[in-house]
């Protein structure tokens, strides 16, 4: 009997509807049959996220203490290894502060998305610590930084011109990541996380190539991801400008021996500036004035270029690509179907809906790309202005924006070894 019903139903269903619902009524069982329970296990307990926040807070405190007060590279390395093991391999690199940028941007852009407490804490705490202690998060807490820190074997200096140029990349990455999140396209920081694949022992081939390349580079170039990619470093660097306690290389009076600058693998130590008399102030002022005039021009030009590249950027979005594909298929300009267009057909929704959604997203991209372009123009202009403003330095100083609080420079400082007393060392060459 049932078999006949099944066959009839089969013939009916094959002829049409892909969504076959209630083809077979629920049977009336004669004896008291009890169906197994449909289990719905809840999301993991929040307790873990509170523990993570506590561990993050303690690690930040410890990093600040070890790098700024105790000045111990060796103890800091222990913390580096701990962070790599806990935040990296144990917590599997998610949630991380770098990726949390995207959640914060999404919260601001999309009223429906609610920022989880743990994500808010991972985003905010390192920034707050940067306001007071500089980039102590980068120094020994961030698992991505820690992974690169431990593989650095033979640091090679990156030429200043290349270093300066590459340091623009994180700004572009930050802008692009925010654009793609606020348009609902992708979380690219997570998608191109260099090491999460090693933490989880699984991932795509592209991630593996990227991770291995970054690790290999990190053996000779100090922290390539942190310096030339990491978008969170941009925020940390800028907040570090206001830090109350920061890396002071020499515990006593600097003897200008430049050993610290040689020891710093991140090119974050700036040499003393030449005598004020030796530079032409008027030329410098003229250049600064020109740059200040150029700033709005660069911002406007960038915004224009961004606006023009909007159609190209919008194609990163799945729904925009799908709508384009559907349009081409509908108008017979392409043969066959992609997975996405086939899936759309199976859902049985009208093509107009897809077109309308894509138009809304494209509009968001128009505005967002213009802002991204303007942002890049601003970054270029401000970086040039900063480069042309000379701040007098009489000694070797850590660049507060670039310094990762790794504590390497202390170990190389002769004053440190002389017990912090500058009196032990002659400094006749210094002008004061």
């Amino acid at each position, binding site marked *: *009997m*049932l*078999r006949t019903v*099944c066959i009839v*139903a*089969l013939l009916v*269903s094959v002829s049409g509807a*892909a*969504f*076959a*619902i209630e*083809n*077979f009524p*629920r049977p009336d*069982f*004669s*004896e008291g*049959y009890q*169906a*197994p*329970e*449909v289990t*719905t*296990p*809840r*999301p*993991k307990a929040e307790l873990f996220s509170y523990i993570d926040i506590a561990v993050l807070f303690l690690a930040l405190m410890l990093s600040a203490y070890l790098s700024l007060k105790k000045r111990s590279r060796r103890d800091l390395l222990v913390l580096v290894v701990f962070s790599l093991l806990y935040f990296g391999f144990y917590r*599997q690199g*998610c*949630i991380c502060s770098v990726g949390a940028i*995207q*959640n914060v941007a999404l919260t601001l852009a999309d009223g429906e*998305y*609610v920022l*989880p*407490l743990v*994500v*808010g*804490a991972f985003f*905010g705490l390192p*920034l*707050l610590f940067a*306001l007071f202690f500089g980039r102590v998060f980068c120094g020994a807490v961030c698992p991505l930084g820690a992974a690169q820190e431990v593989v650095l074997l033979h640091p090679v200096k990156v030429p200043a011109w290349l270093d300066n140029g590459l340091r623009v990349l994180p700004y572009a990455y930050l802008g692009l990541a925010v654009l793609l999140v606020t348009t609902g396209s*992708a*979380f690219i920081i*997570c*998608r191109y996380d260099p090491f999460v694949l090693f933490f*989880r022992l699984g*991932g795509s081939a592209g991630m593996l190539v990227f991770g291995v390349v970054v690790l290999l580079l990190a053996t000779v170039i100090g922290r390539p991801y942190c310096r030339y990619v990491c978008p969170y470093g941009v925020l940390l660097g800028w*907040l570090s400008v*206001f830090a*109350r306690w920061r890396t002071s290389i020499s515990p006593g009076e600097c003897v200008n021996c430049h050993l610290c600058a040689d020891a710093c693998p991140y090119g974050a130590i700036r040499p003393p500036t030449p005598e004020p008399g030796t530079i032409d102030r008027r030329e410098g002022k003229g250049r600064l004035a020109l740059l200040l005039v150029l700033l709005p021009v660069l911002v406007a030009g960038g915004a224009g270029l961004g606006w023009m590249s909007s159609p190209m950027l919008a194609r990163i979005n*799945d*729904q925009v690509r799908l709508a384009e594909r559907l349009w081409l298929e509908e108008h017979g300009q392409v043969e066959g179907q*992609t*997975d996405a267009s086939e*899936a*759309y057909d*199976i*859902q049985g929704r009208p093509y107009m809906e897809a077109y309308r959604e894509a138009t809304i997203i494209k509009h968001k991209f128009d505005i967002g790309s213009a802002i991204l372009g303007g942002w890049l123009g601003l970054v270029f202009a401000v970086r040039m202005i900063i480069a042309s403003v000379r701040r007098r330095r009489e000694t070797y100083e850590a660049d507060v924006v670039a310094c990762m609080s790794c504590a390497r420079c202390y170990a190389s400082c002769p004053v440190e070894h002389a017990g912090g007393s500058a009196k032990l060392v002659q400094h006749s060459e210094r002008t004061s």
Partner: protein
Amino acid sequence: MSDASKKTTRREFLSAAVRASGLVAASGVLGSLVSRGAAQEYVWQIDPDKCTQCGECATACVLNPSAVKCVHEYAKCGYCELCFGYFIDQREDDTEAAENQRCPTNAIHRSFVEDPYYQYVIDESKCIGCGICVKGCRMYGNSALILQIRHDRCLNCNECAIAAVCPSNAIVRVPADKPYMLRTKDEDR
């Protein structure tokens, strides 16, 4: 000299002001996050109405095996003797032999209830979330089998790796207090 020291003072004052406002802002945000509670936070889930059982769930998840499993909504099940989620279309006979089953991992257990009804139970420890049985049940049956992200396994990644490749955008964020998208209500299950 006095000019220089005045400048430093101004710089220091500004820094202190920025630090203080940063502290105030951070405590404000933290306060609102804590007072709001975690109930409204979001988790990932598969919308069964959008899902096309393409098979990406089995391989794209960062977990191996995937956090996606087949879930059987018994309230919708027809208890067919010849279940289309269980048996393949072309087969020699109707025995439970492995070559007759759709499931590649033998994760569906078939047991007799009463003539002519059979009960099908998913063994989640074997299920890999490939959706082959879901497709069979949906094509010919009641669509009582659906793919769902199991939250005892899901890491709730910032960007779900399956969502990134899902061709039908079926993976959506749902409130954490309603983490499943079953089609039957609690009282009917």
